[in-house]
């Protein structure tokens, strides 16, 4: 019990993920600034933002809305992100070997943050938040199936294994999955799914700031908004870590391999940031079409190649 609580709250869990996620969020903003020839924010900026929202700002509740649900949604989003992160990081950091079928549990837990954003937005009673929530729902419908196809491809490549630890082990004894044609295709598909899951720019229509001024988060202020920021930081860490685990050989925590692990993580975040800085926001119709037709096609080609062992 004690060790489980430690796992959940401190080392691979909440505290560790929040700190690393905050640093990655700074990295994202700094790279964005450098791409635009700006100087960018200081290193601890995400933490200043978080503590300002948590400690200083007033929390305003919507007058005509479900207040309880409005306040509960951010808590559940942090919970879902942390829970998924613990299940990803325990096998990835080689602490425990997870349990049988944890890939499926992770897949479901990773949906919780997006769903709670939708619930929170709809319970705020703001029309712009409702527009954002409807877009987020459509986005979930379009990328979840694609993400499932990525997992199917990974399961086939690892020889019908649904344990994350087993998948990492298969890669570390053989070659990483990204070293084959189907692996590269699966990686491309997974990057687009991550972009949509994190609501970064080509797919940020739920919170489009210039268009519906904040969208799903428009009514949030103070502590609940700090929780939402925290869940975003955690997701920015665990989703690239998940891609690292299922496609890029996982991590070995000894000697020079720690450096490779950090570099792999930073490379995936860098790729996401560069995509977000060089693309305009697409319409929700275009995003659905993009996922349902083109990215699904790519994923199915990758699965067929994986069945033939390429």
């Amino acid at each position, binding site marked *: 019990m004690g060790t489980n609580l430690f796992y959940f709250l401190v080392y691979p869990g909440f505290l560790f993920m929040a700190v690393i996620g905050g640093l990655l969020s700074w990295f994202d903003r700094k790279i964005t600034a450098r791409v635009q020839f*700006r100087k960018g924010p200081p290193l601890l900026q995400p933490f*200043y933002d978080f503590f300002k929202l948590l*400690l*200083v700002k*007033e929390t305003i509740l919507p007058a005509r809305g479900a207040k309880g649900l409005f306040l509960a949604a951010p808590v559940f989003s942090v919970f879902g992100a942390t829970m998924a992160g613990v299940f990803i990081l325990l096998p990835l950091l080689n602490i425990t070997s997870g349990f049988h079928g944890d890939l499926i549990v992770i897949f479901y837990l990773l949906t919780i943050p997006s769903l709670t954003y939708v619930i929170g937005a709809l319970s705020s009673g703001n029309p712009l938040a409702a527009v954002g929530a409807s877009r987020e729902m459509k986005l979930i419908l379009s990328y979840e199936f694609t993400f499932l196809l990525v997992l199917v491809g990974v399961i086939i490549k690892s020889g019908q294994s649904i344990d994350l630890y087993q998948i990492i082990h298969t890669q570390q004894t053989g070659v990483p999955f990204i070293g084959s044609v189907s692996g590269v295709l699966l990686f491309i598909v997974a990057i687009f799914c991550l972009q949509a899951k994190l609501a970064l720019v080509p797919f940020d229509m739920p919170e489009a700031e210039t268009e519906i001024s904040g969208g799903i988060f428009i009514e*949030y202020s103070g502590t609940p908004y700090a929780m939402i920021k925290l869940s975003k930081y955690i997701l920015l860490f665990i989703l690239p870590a998940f891609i690292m685990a299922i496609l890029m050989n996982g991590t070995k925590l000894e000697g020079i391999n720690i450096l490779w692990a950090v570099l792999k993580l930073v490379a995936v975040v860098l790729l996401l940031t560069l995509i977000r800085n060089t693309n305009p926001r697409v319409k929700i119709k275009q995003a659905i079409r993009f996922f349902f037709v083109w990215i699904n096609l790519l994923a199915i080609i990758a699965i067929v190649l994986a069945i033939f062992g390429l």
Partner: protein
Amino acid sequence: MGFKSYCFKKSLWLFHFGGASCNNCDIEILDCLTPRYDLERFGMLLVGSIRHADVLLVNGSINKKDKPRLLEIYEQAPKPVLVVAIGACGCTGGIFAEGNTFAGPVDKIIPVDVYIPGCPPKPEAILAGIVKLLGKN
């Protein structure tokens, strides 16, 4: 200086309210966010919703139509919120001060923390005003 006020000063998010402006001040405010001046190095961001804002930038003359909207925006902002009046019109009314529809400079409607005069103020002047705002709190 406490931890709370330090975090607050390091992360001011801006919300821009334009009254009946001639657009010059709006353009100069946007200039502050461009690569040359880059307010983000002080942790400042332009946000889309007043619920996320810490600083309310008000420019342009406030006429009778704008006044209730400005009050509404100010009441919707989560406290503590700082108010900055930018430009001659925001500070005193400028050439509109004698006008028929003019409803008073910004500080007659909501409390103002910093005044940045100029028609329009240069981005350097806006930065100097922001520095004074940081020193004040």
